[in-house]
């Protein structure tokens, strides 16, 4: 397992290098610079600014020095927010986004697994169709529609929950977590239904049934572990996706997370911030994929043997 993980981590280095290089090229070739503004910027000011951020050097030199800094963990200063470093900005948003992602994930797993398992128990009956139709709607429902709808109903009409904020008013985490988690819950429902159906047709389940075990025990103890493997494989990339894709939800609810920085950085041509957040998310995605692969190996005896065989 250790060699498997190490191998995968080594593979990540060229991937990250490609990500950095391509992002670097793209941001520098995009029209408009970080300092262009509605009001004309005098030439001498522009010169002073570019000199301060090394933008007056040849591009290859900027690239080399950026790589050197990133290797040491320094993502450089933000162009948009003078005095703030990219590391500092990422750090300031990460905790919030991670917390939001975590709650959203709990919502997704909780709703998704229950719906999926329920559906798989009586395939092609109403007990299957109702949760699966709901899941389909959940997948199709964009968060920019679901968010305002939830706010209107629970925030403004019923006045049960706050309409925005994060950690400012009691209960302000509920709606964002549900909004962000619903789409993923729908995926998880479909994945767990599929996984469960496959497992429930296996011989060992028939054996368990033949032994006269209760349905609850069969599902809960024997079937779930195998049935949830597709869900586990999905969790890693999904969590990384939640972190990177929380922009819409963060905007709807005024949440000071990383997603907003990521999108705004691109609009602002904040070169270092775009690169920094991209590298950061790329690293997260690689790590979470690795984690979920390791978890899948641990859960699935067939894969475990395969890894051992390779090792």
């Amino acid at each position: 397992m250790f060699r498997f993980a190490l191998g995968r981590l080594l593979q990540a280095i060229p991937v990250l290098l490609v990500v950095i290089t391509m992002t670097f090229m793209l941001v520098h070739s995009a029209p408009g610079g970080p300092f262009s503004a509605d009001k004309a910027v005098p030439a001498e000011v522009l010169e002073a600014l570019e000199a301060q951020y090394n933008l007056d050097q040849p591009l290859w030199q900027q690239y080399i020095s950026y790589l050197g800094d990133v290797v040491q963990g320094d993502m450089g200063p933000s162009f948009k927010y003078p005095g703030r470093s990219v590391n500092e900005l990422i750090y300031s948003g990460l905790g919030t986004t991670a917390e939001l992602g975590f709650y959203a994930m709990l919502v997704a797993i909780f709703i998704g697994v229950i719906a999926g398992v329920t559906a798989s128990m009586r395939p092609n009956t109403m007990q299957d169709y109702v949760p699966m139709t709901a899941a389909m709607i959940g997948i199709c429902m964009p968060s920019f529609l679901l968010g305002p709808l939830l706010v209107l109903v629970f925030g403004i009409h019923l006045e049960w929950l706050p309409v925005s904020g994060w950690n400012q008013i009691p209960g302000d985490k509920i709606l964002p977590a549900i909004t962000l988690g619903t789409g993923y819950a729908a995926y998880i429902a479909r994945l767990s239904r599929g996984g469960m159906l496959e497992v429930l047709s296996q011989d060992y389940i028939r054996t368990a049934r033949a032994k006269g075990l209760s349905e609850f025990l069969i599902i809960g103890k024997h079937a779930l572990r195998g049935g949830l493997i597709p869900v586990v494989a999905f969790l890693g990339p999904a969590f990384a996706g939640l972190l990177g894709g929380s922009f819409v939800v963060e905007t709807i609810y005024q949440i000071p997370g990383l997603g907003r920085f990521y999108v705004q950085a691109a609009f602002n041509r904040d070169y270092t911030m775009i690169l920094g957040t991209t590298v950061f998310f790329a690293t997260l995605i690689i790590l979470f994929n690795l984690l979920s692969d390791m978890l899948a190996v641990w859960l699935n005896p067939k894969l475990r043997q395969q890894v051992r065989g390779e090792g």
Partner: protein
Amino acid sequence: MKQCPSVSSSSLISALALVLISSLLLSGCGSSESNVESGNRTGTLHWGNGTEPQSLDPHIATGVPEHHIIMALMEGLVHKDSKTLGPTPGVAESWTVSEDGTVYTFKIRDNARWSNGDVHNAHDFVWSWWRALQPALGNLYAYMYFPIVNAREYYKGEVTDFAEVGVKALDDLTLQITLDNPTPYFLQLLDHYSMYPVHRATVEKFGAADERGTRWTYAGNMVANGPFKLKSWEINRAIVAERNTFYWGNDDVRLNEVVFYPTENATTEERMFRAGQLHYTNDVPIDKVQTYREANDTALKVVPYLGTYYYRINVREPHLQDKRVRRALAMTIDREQLTEHVLKAGQIPAYAMTPPNTRGYYPPISLNFDPEVARQLMAEAGYPNGEGFPSTEILYNTNEGHRKVAVAIQQMWREHLNIEVKLLNQEWKVYLDSESSGDYQISRAGWIGDYVDPNNFLDMFICDGGNNRTGWCNQEYDRLVLDVAPRAKTHEERMAIFTQAEQMLMDDLPVLPIYTYTTKHLVHPSVKNIANNIMDQQSYREIYLEGAED
């Protein structure tokens, strides 16, 4: 299966469910006093502020959200009255102006203090202004200083000794400023944050004086001189300013705290207002303006704004070089129709560049809506009934409001001139790039005044002005705006010169003025002393909160 871990999947799910329920639902069971209710009790104003400020350094900042926060934290020599916008005492308790209008002498109040208790005197201004004119700092508002003798020369490096710049501390409490020309709006400039003083010891503690972006503006570090001081700054969450007890006018300040929220999304902001999370919104979504209007909701405040929405015409384009064509385009925009049926938020049709009643100045109006004459002009220019009119494009930055205006104008030109223009939207920075490099034909633009004077609108269009961007150049216009107006002896004479200049601009029409902006806010009834001036300038030292009504 026996070697499996003992935690079964179902109990894992139950555990997750428990965590979910406890962390989400239980946190919802608090008391539910809204921000507005608690704010009215404690004297805390909750302010929707648009976006996260880039910087709170007055010599670096440029935007409106920054302006609001800096206004709470800092103060200049004078302060604009929030009703009349006339100068009232700030750090200076009084001032005199020499007869020829070029020498200003300010008396600094002897009880002026920085927020850490340090004495605040005339030397602070001399040092701060020296700092603001260091090119390395990248101060985009350095031009605010240019009326002062040798300020421009010093900034450009033509004068190297700051002693030659017209700013002197005659003694600890007397500051003398010498100008090149009498500049009637000079006192207004002093209340622009780019001319606010900064605390030298604090700035130098965190880096070189001309170093951009040091940490002196962080909460816990910043020392300033305004009615409030920086208490906390949580990025993308809120900035809290609390009462500065060392402020000279502290006894008259009635708020204890102001919380500034970065409310980027106007729709979210409006919902926050309805839920009692904000006292004041930075904006109101266009479609909501109508709703509030119909409900006769007094929370909605719509006020004319010192800004003009207009289209630039690239006069370097062969077919747009002909001023008859430009006039025909200008005459077929039905501005009344546009403001009433498309914009619907009280905007005022604009027929000149400078908004009406800018320091008592009313621009000459020679433009009107007249499709008949416009068609004749087009025929004279060689495009009878729009025939043979080259392909033309309106460029705008991606935004629903700009799109609506462009679509309406496209239709008006189709209907009245029988010409087909295309619409092209570009993302903001791309649009800026296209516009400043002259890679457009007609482009959307807007200008918000920095100070209330026609000069601020008219000096944009001098030949090599960085904000001109139309390729239009008229030496006589430049002479009037740059040389003749500053030397005018009286207000009337000066306004007459501006009228003449603006008439020239409107004869040639390198720009098509469309409407005068309005500002739209939602204000909770408990907020008192909110100003309704054309600069949308609020005075936090005057605002107070009355007990909540609900």
